[in-house]
């Protein structure tokens, strides 16, 4: 086994070892021990990922796709199920982002979850979550991909409903799990469609054979398979209409939100489309579906975020919107740009969530923006991080989001045709991003300081009189299954500060990896994976680049400026606009009624069908015919046999004698 393969396996196995060690021995470790073990396991995993990167770069350019096979599960005619990893620039890129950002999130959680009764359980789950995601991105065949995919769903369920005595949290966990299982089904069925024609589960063999297996573009089976893969990607990446679990997932602890949104889980769909690009390029219709859905998602999420009052939900909708950009990008052939945005987004989104966690801790668990205000002086470090994250998210030059988002849009514009619609929608979305991000920042940090902020300025951290669920106001205790009694804010905890500082630095400089016409680090690094792509590494014209960059910067500043004007300079405007556009506001406030729509189209018909089936099918056929019929037969048979059991001893003796006599006569006559 080469050292590259060894590093890849080590990346995968460190978090798994961390999970097991913490689960088995976590309680015997000293205070915060589980947190340090979990963070250490992730740091080692990240170090291995760097090792893999170095080894990969040592290889010649066209040999940078290495399949590391541990053993075969089944290798017979038509099936080649192996435990194999595919180590190529794309997977190494993903493990670097996943392991790197996860390490910082673990570091942050050491303090953040400190007083929680479920501390050990939390870190065991957290390590398992990262392990699942690493398995997903390192998988070298469809089988292992599906396993990683399902593990991620299960881990997200465990972490979203981490505070398992909170009904809203368990509901959110169930919702996330059910929608993710829908995606799993799509992924499995899509794999069947592809496997049926290509006859192999291995990625590289499948991609090589795709031109022979599907000689024509847009072969019906391939399009169906790719759209089913997209269903999996949409469910995992929270794209319309399978996105409703993501805002609800905010019920989990804040580091979990950061992990789901930045490093693991929602980026899986983007990775999947990028990984399957040879299939999608052979089925452009499916790729177009992905691009259109991504575009719809970014607009729907952007408008919804404008009306939300929950701090974390605003960030959640911004994630949906940014993932929409990525899905749109990778579906339209802007692979490196989509993945570049994935990386920068991981930096600034993790940063935003960490900053939000610090604010929420200062508010003693309350997440309502209406209750917040004036934290600028009380939480200067958090404020700085939030602004850096917000500027990167809004795409203000020279922060990282500016370059990555504009590159996606640039390549969309370069493709021409109807992609211009997506191009324009992308800039509308960018305007909305600036608007809602800074609406959130201005409302939480500017204006009159709320009592909690004043208390903090005097050096005292606010604690609620009685702990309660911020969503419903129900009273809770601080025992296991609910959040712990203590709150920790970034200003006082070095681990939280280190994690946020590192991410803030990365969010500022991350974009310099790929500046149009200047640096092409990501493009060059990912090239071996996308060598076979006709759409990769096109050079847009200089005019389009200049126009895009200027427009992007202008749109971002316009969004922020409008946010400043509406929520700082002239707060009365917000109310007036809300009243003037009441129907629109209601639509955004109610999240475009997607929950109601799904309830009406899916949940309620299923419920009605269930009731109907219970009343007719179950009552008549199952209970009446199957259950009643079989018991009836047994009862009739036994009553016939019971008549023979009189209880008279001499009667039994007579039966024996008669039987013997009959037997004797039979043998006599027979002989």
């Amino acid at each position, binding site marked *: 086994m080469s050292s590259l393969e060894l590093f890849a396996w080590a990346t995968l196995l460190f978090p798994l070892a961390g999970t097991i060690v913490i689960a088995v021995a976590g309680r015997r470790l000293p205070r915060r021990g589980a947190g340090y073990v979990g963070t250490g396991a992730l740091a080692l995993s990240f170090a291995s990922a760097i090792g893999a990167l170095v080894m990969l770069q040592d290889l010649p350019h066209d040999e940078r796709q290495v399949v590391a096979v541990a053993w075969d599960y089944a290798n017979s005619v038509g099936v080649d199920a192996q435990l194999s990893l595919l180590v190529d620039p794309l997977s190494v890129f993903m493990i670097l982002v996943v392991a790197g950002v996860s390490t910082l999130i673990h570091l942050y959680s050491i303090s953040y979850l400190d007083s929680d009764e479920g501390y050990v359980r939390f870190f065991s789950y957290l390590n398992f979550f990262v392990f699942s995601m690493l398995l997903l991105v390192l998988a070298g065949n469809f089988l292992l991909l599906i396993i990683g995919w399902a593990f991620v769903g299960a881990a997200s369920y465990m972490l979203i409903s981490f505070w398992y005595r909170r009904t809203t949290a368990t509901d959110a966990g169930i919702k996330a799990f059910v929608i993710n299982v829908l995606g799993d089904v799509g992924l499995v069925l899509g794999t069947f469609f592809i496997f049926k024609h290509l006859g192999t589960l291995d990625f590289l063999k499948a991609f090589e054979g795709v031109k022979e297996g599907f000689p024509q573009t847009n072969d019906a089976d391939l399009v169906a398979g790719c759209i089913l893969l997209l269903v999996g990607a949409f469910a995992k990446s929270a794209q319309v209409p399978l996105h409703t679990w993501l805002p609800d997932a905010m019920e989990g602890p804040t580091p979990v939100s950061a992990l789901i949104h930045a490093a693991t889980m929602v980026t899986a769909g983007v990775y999947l489309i990028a990984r399957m690009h040879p299939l999608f390029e052979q089925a452009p219709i499916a790729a177009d579906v992905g691009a259109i859905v991504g575009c719809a998602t970014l607009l729907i999420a952007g408008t919804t975020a404008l009306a939300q009052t929950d701090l974390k939900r605003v960030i959640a909708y911004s994630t949906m919107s940014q993932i929409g950009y990525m899905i749109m990008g990778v579906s339209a052939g802007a692979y490196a740009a989509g993945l570049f945005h994935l990386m920068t987004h991981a930096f600034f989104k993790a940063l935003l969530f960490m900053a939000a966690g610090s604010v929420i801790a200062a508010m003693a668990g309350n997440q309502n923006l209406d209750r917040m205000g004036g934290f600028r002086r009380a939480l200067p470090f958090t404020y700085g991080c939030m602004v850096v994250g917000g500027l990167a998210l809004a795409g203000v030059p020279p922060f990282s989001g500016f370059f990555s988002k504009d590159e996606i849009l640039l390549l969309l514009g370069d493709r021409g045709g109807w992609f211009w619609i997506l191009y324009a929608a992308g800039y509308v979305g960018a305007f909305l991003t600036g608007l809602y991000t800074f609406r959130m920042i201005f409302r939480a940090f500017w204006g009159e300081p709320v009592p909690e902020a004043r208390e903090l300025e005097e050096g005292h951290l606010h604690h609620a009189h009685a702990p309660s669920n911020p969503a419903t106001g129900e009273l809770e205790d601080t025992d296991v299954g609910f959040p712990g009694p203590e709150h920790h804010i970034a200003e006082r905890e070095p681990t939280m500060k280190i994690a946020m500082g590192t991410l803030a630095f990365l969010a500022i400089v991350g974009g310099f990896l790929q500046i149009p016409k200047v640096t092409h680090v990501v493009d060059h690094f990912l090239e071996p994976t996308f060598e076979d792509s006709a759409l990769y590494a096109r050079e847009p014209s200089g005019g389009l680049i200049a126009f895009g960059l200027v427009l992007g910067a202008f749109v971002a500043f316009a969004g922020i400026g409008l946010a400043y004007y509406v929520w700082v300079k002239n707060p009365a405007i917000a109310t007036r606009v809300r009243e003037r556009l009441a129907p629109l506001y209601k639509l955004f406030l109610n999240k475009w009624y997607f929950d109601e729509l799904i309830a009406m189209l899916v949940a309620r018909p299923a419920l009605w069908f269930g009731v109907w089936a219970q009343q007719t099918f179950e009552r008549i056929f199952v209970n009446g015919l199957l259950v009643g019929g079989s018991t009836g037969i047994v009862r009739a048979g036994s009553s016939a046999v*019971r008549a023979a*059991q*009189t*209880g008279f*001893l*001499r009667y039994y003796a*007579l039966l024996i004698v008669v039987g013997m006599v009959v037997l004797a006569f039979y043998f006599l006559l027979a002989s």
Partner: protein
Amino acid sequence: MDIGWYLTASALIFTIGAGGVLTRRSPLVILLCLELMLNAANLALIAFARMHGNAEGQIFAVIVMVVAACEVTVGLGVIVAMHRRRLPIDVDELRELQG
């Protein structure tokens, strides 16, 4: 003597025993009649053994006698236990097996 006589006697005793088991209601008498049936079978076994001139039938007869002794021991024990509990000593009264 012809083997037929032995077998006739054996059959007669067996029939008497079977008739007793079927007609009598006292468990004690039923036990006695069972003994009769067993011994009728013993008689036939020994007669056949003598006819064939080997000892196998006699060995079987001895085993049957051992079994009979055990059976009488258990049976009498049951009857004594019934008597102690003041249960009716009448097989027609003991009808718990009725389905």
